């Protein structure tokens, strides 16, 4: 028997596979047994009720997808009364994803969801900071520091900061989040993209642009997860384009201690459970007794110098 448990700071997960925020809900219990997941991660909520973006909210691009769902939200009260109790029927850590357009609002909802039954709070800082220039908090180390410090003082629960691949300062933002008290990093959110319907000449998304997710994102998010794992001491949770067990193993070798599966669940709703079985077999056949033996085992000695040139794609 291999040991699949993994530690994210003070939290121990039975296994490293969990859903990505916004690609999972109570509804999935119709297809699979939610007990089997390492954690439950809910769709980002905001304090107030919100409608989300205009439709169409998704479109397909070659082998991947774009979405501009936005953050439709029934509000924090509805969430506390309905969603938390649903998940508390499972003996699986519940991770609540939150967001807001200003640091104070962010801190407020963070405090509001710091209730029994919640194991950790994922802070989706990839949303626009409307008090500044509208760029997402996670775009710059300075705004990351500002919001993370407020969040830190708003809750004693573990805080997972979810980074954005839209920044050119991945390492600086990761360090800022760590410094300001994040307990883990989730790497990464979707990447700003666009598609146009050549027949109507309209953007394929009602919101003009949206986030790329799925296999196309993987080499980018993997690079970020590696950069973060090399740079910070806190755990990194890999997220982006995972759809095979090889993808998961790649993230673990790169230094992630757990992974989130998003878009792949839309293609194969059972995939998280399938991947868990495959991961267990993989470790067995490779004679790896414990998941932690795999984590961060990348053999990058030869290439160590190159890390300096991290922003140097030709």
């Amino acid at each position, binding site marked *: 028997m291999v040991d699949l448990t993994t530690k994210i700071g003070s939290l121990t997960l039975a296994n490293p596979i969990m859903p990505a925020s*916004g*690609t*999972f*809900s*109570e*509804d*999935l*219990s*119709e*297809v*699979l*047994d*939610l*007990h089997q997941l390492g954690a439950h991660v809910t*769709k980002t909520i905001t304090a107030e009720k919100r*409608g*989300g973006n205009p*439709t*169409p*909210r*998704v*479109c*397909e*691009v*070659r*082998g*991947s*997808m774009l*979405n501009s*769902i936005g953050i*439709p939200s029934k509000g924090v009260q509805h969430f506390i009364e309905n969603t938390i109790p*649903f998940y*508390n*029927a*499972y003996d699986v850590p519940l991770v609540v994803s939150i967001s807001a357009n200003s640091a104070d609002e962010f801190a407020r909802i963070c405090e509001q969801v710091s209730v029994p039954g919640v194991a950790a709070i994922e802070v989706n800082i990839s949303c626009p900071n409307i008090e500044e220039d509208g760029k997402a908090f996670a775009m710059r180390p300075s705004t990351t520091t500002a919001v993370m410090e407020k969040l830190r003082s708003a809750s004693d629960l573990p805080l997972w900061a979810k980074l954005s691949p839209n920044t050119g300062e991945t390492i600086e933002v990761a360090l800022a989040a760590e410094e300001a008290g994040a307990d883990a990093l989730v790497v990464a959110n979707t990447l700003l993209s666009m598609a146009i319907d050549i027949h109507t000449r309209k953007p394929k998304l009602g919101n003009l642009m949206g986030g790329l997710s*799925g296999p196309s994102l993987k080499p980018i998010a993997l690079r970020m997860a590696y950069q973060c794992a090399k740079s910070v001491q806190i755990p990194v949770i890999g997220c982006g384009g995972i759809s095979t067990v090889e993808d998961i193993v790649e993230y673990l070798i790169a230094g992630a201690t757990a992974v989130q599966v998003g*878009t792949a*669940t*839309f*293609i*194969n*709703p*059972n995939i998280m459970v399938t991947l868990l079985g495959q991961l267990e077999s993989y470790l067995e056949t490779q004679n790896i007794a414990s998941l932690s033996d795999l984590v961060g085992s990348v053999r990058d000695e030869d290439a160590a110098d190159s890390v300096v040139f991290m922003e140097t794609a030709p």
Partner: protein
Amino acid sequence: MSLIQRHSAGEGSPANGTTHEVETTVKSNTPVNGEYRLLTLDAPQSVLDCKPGQFFHILCPVTMAEQPYLRRPMSIYGYSAEKGELQFLYKVTGEGTRALATLTKGDKLNVLGPLGVGFTIQDDWQNLLLLARGVGLATLAPLAQEAQRLNRKLVAICSARNEDVLMSIDHFKALGAEVITVTDAQGTSDLENLREIIENQIADHGVDVMYTCGSNRMLKLLQEIGAKHDIPGEIALEQQMACGLGMCQCCVRSFNRNGTITQERVCREGPVFGIEEAMAW
């Protein structure tokens, strides 16, 4: 009205198993006319407890020429637990349906379903009427099967560009439905003629419920007639889908619930909605 039927999600239980991702085998995949094809699958019992109006989310094959990524939603055209059979009637439009069209007998196809909330047939609804055009036939066809099973009278008004693309007439007739066909070519498919046909049905033998699918024109027509005669109705709607299960919230549409505009997920609260709450788009 449709909301009352909503599945309630599992409560700390193992997968509550109303929906399954299964591998099926193609029995046949034949052209119906120049645009439409009928796909018949050998499917496990687990997915054959269907209701008219529900749909499946189909993982179209990947070929050298077509590489669809997301699943494609398709209404259930036919289902039979006895025969272990599931049928889809689809129009070849883009990458996914072109890939579907390449399937031949013996090929495997991964489908997820049954999904969503189907049509209601209340116990006291004896005279059913449906108004279908184009691919809407696929969605409405199972109502004929269900009407026969429940011993209800069904009038199916089938509209098309011309006789050549009129489909499923025999299917409806075989299931005991009365079929009225209208076509653009004959100039019989216009709104006013449709209104007259329906009004005559109401006058002749009464209509307890009206079903339709898809188009704005038909929605408005049935909303008007329904309001005038106080006849309930249901409409199956479409929207782009990613998950098909209610998780991603991409498939929302606006509905007018007693003056309040709400957004509902077509895959989950629908695809069938009350005709009075549906909004033209």
